[in-house]
């Protein structure tokens, strides 16, 4: 306990350094700025803004990225409430009651409850991250290559199970991501793999190119198709930003339950925040005395999912910081950023770079505080941003992404590669393939292969090593169980569909 306090004190010392405070603030601001833009989700926001953090010192860069992440999420909720366009899956449920509240002239209350709920969740989960960090790190030290491989396999299976749509297609995306990560020089022998003799590919496909292409460019191209006239912004002036006493009393239970649910679900690898907000909303509706109010502007329907997704967003840092394994696509982007700064994510970060580890944790709390302080007064600014027509917005995002990608290596080829991934991403959407498992697998690929090769070498080529070592076997069994669980209802449902079809 004293350790925890000492560590947190160290963290706050780092995070409260004026430069780091500045990065945190800047991250939260630009994150919200981009996150507010309709149709641009959290992952896309973080991917787009990655390059601007690369020039900073490592601690500052990660603090800023974390700020961008919370900002983007908060911006997404703002858009959901005011325009009824969810930037991404986590905000879908916020739309349901949040937009109804806005239409009833209670946009201010919805926005402030969402901020307060997020802040409360942020406080709780920051402490949780700090408390769980140390024990999990010592657990990680027991892991050998076989356990790491199994753990990553479990993480990918979770991503598959929690992804929208078909399990089979998500598996296909994971395999595609693993395959793409193998392009370039082999780690051990240096042999060029699948490079097609293109010199630029010998270093592998840059992770930012993949992320920007699949999330940035592809999303723009897809949004271009949709009619932009359907946007319906709440026009009336937002008044009464502070929630009433009754609002606070009504939502306090929902905030607490959302926080608990979100914190637990966030630690699990896979879709964390998305599942959390859905689960919290459903739970709240189920235990409510008057469930019929949900969908008609119930404040609990905003408070619960917003607290849950923020709690999950934070606790999803736990597997990343302690085990070095990103549980979702945003954390995969964080790994990419860490690698570019020469930090190998994993248990050694905490022992070797305590100021980075604890600084980041403390900055999570500060970031949440800043969101409450800066965003509520700035709601007017965000609203006016929502009025910028899309025809001006998308070229801006395109050139911003181009410059960002180019700036990383001063390489025009990277820009072209990202464009190719943009088209690929567009094609994926048309065929209902989810890009998130692909990116996660792309980041985990090199680590997974390295551990697989090491495990096999140590076991003298015996593949049963993954089942004979107890921790590894346990992880694999959980993974298989999850997969089976996900496949069963799918098969049953599909069969029902077939039956319905044959009756017609």
């Amino acid at each position, binding site marked *: 306990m004293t350790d925890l306090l000492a560590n947190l004190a160290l963290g706050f010392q780092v995070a409260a350094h004026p430069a780091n405070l500045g990065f945190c603030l800047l991250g939260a601001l630009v994150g919200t700025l981009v996150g507010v833009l309709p149709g641009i989700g959290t992952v896309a926001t973080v991917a787009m803004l990655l390059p601007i953090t690369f*020039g900073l010192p490592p601690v500052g860069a990660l603090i800023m990225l974390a700020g961008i992440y919370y900002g983007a999420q908060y911006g997404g909720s703002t858009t959901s409430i005011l325009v009824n366009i969810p930037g991404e899956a986590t905000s879908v449920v916020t739309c349901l009651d949040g937009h109804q509240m806005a239409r009833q002239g209670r946009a201010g209350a919805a926005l402030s409850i969402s901020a307060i709920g997020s802040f409360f969740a942020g406080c709780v989960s920051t402490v949780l991250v700090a408390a769980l960090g140390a024990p999990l790190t010592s657990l990680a030290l027991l892991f050998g290559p076989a356990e790491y491989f199994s753990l990553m396999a479990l993480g990918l299976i979770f991503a598959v199970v929690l992804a929208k749509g078909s399990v089979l297609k998500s598996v296909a995306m994971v395999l595609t991501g693993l395959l793409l990560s193998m392009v370039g020089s082999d780690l051990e*022998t240096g042999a060029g793999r699948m490079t097609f003799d293109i010199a630029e590919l010998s270093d592998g496909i840059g992770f930012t190119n993949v992320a920007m292409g699949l999330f940035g460019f592809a999303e723009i191209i897809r949004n271009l198709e949709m009619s*932009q006239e359907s946007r319906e912004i709440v026009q009336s002036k937002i008044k009464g930003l502070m929630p009433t006493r009754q609002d606070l009393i009504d939502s306090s239970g929902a905030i607490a339950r959302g926080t608990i649910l979100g914190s637990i679900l966030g630690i699990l690898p896979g879709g964390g925040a998305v599942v959390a907000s859905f689960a919290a909303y459903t739970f709240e509706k189920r235990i409510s005395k008057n469930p019929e109010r949900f969908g008609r502007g119930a404040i609990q329907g905003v408070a619960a999912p917003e607290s849950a997704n923020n709690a999950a967003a934070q606790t999803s840092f736990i597997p990343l910081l302690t085990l070095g394994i990103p549980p979702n696509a945003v954390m995969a982007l964080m790994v990419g950023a860490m690698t570019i700064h020469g930090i190998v994510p994993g248990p050694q970060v905490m022992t070797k770079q305590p100021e980075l580890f604890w600084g980041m944790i403390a900055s999570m709390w500060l970031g949440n505080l800043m969101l409450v302080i800066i965003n509520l007064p700035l709601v007017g600014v965000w609203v006016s941003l929502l009025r910028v027509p899309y025809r001006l917005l998308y070229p801006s995002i395109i050139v911003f992404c181009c410059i960002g990608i180019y700036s990383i290596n001063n390489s025009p080829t990277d820009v072209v590669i990202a464009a190719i991934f943009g088209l690929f991403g567009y094609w994926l959407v048309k065929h209902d393939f989810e890009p998130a498992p692909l990116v996660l697998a792309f980041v985990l690929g090199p680590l997974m292969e390295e551990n697989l090769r090491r495990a096999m070498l140590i076991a003298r080529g015996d593949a049963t090593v993954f089942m004979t070592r107890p921790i590894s076997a346990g992880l694999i069994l959980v993974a298989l169980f999850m997969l089976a669980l996900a496949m069963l209802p799918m098969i049953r449902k599909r069969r029902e569909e077939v039956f319905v079809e044959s009756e017609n």
Partner: protein
Amino acid sequence: MSEGAKTSPKGGGFQFKVRGPRDFYGGLALIALGIIAILASGELPGQHGFAFGPGTAPRMFATLLAIVGALVSVSGLFIDGPKIEAFAIRGPAYVLVAILLFAGMIRGIDLRIIGIPFTVPPLGLVLSTFAAFIVSIMGSTEMRWVESLIAAVAMTAFCIGLFVYLLQLPFQLWPL
């Protein structure tokens, strides 16, 4: 994407029908990707003794991808699914051209690699950004010239302020 394979009869009076075209063609493309990867990594040395060679893992995952692709494809044959939405051409084409233009202009490019005897000199960040903005905005059906030009100038100025002055990244601003 062809969706024409709906009712092409196959021998023996068996009706061949693609029920879920998204899955069917998506799966086929994944099979192709898997096969390309297998071919591309075919020359790499595989397992020797207990150790994986550089080619082992790529071939393993490529084979798995082809298998899963086949399963996706087969499920598209038997399970009803939505049609493939039409691919928009205009918007993506302009966006693509804008991105390629940026990549070609910023450091210059020798167009002889695509058979045009002309070398684009390095044109620098300002012109590349401006050009990419204008071309990508032309993809919109609602484009207006005056507004677009003003926005292009503003965005170029913003990017230069951010990347060059605030982030201090080394960029060549103007043509050499």
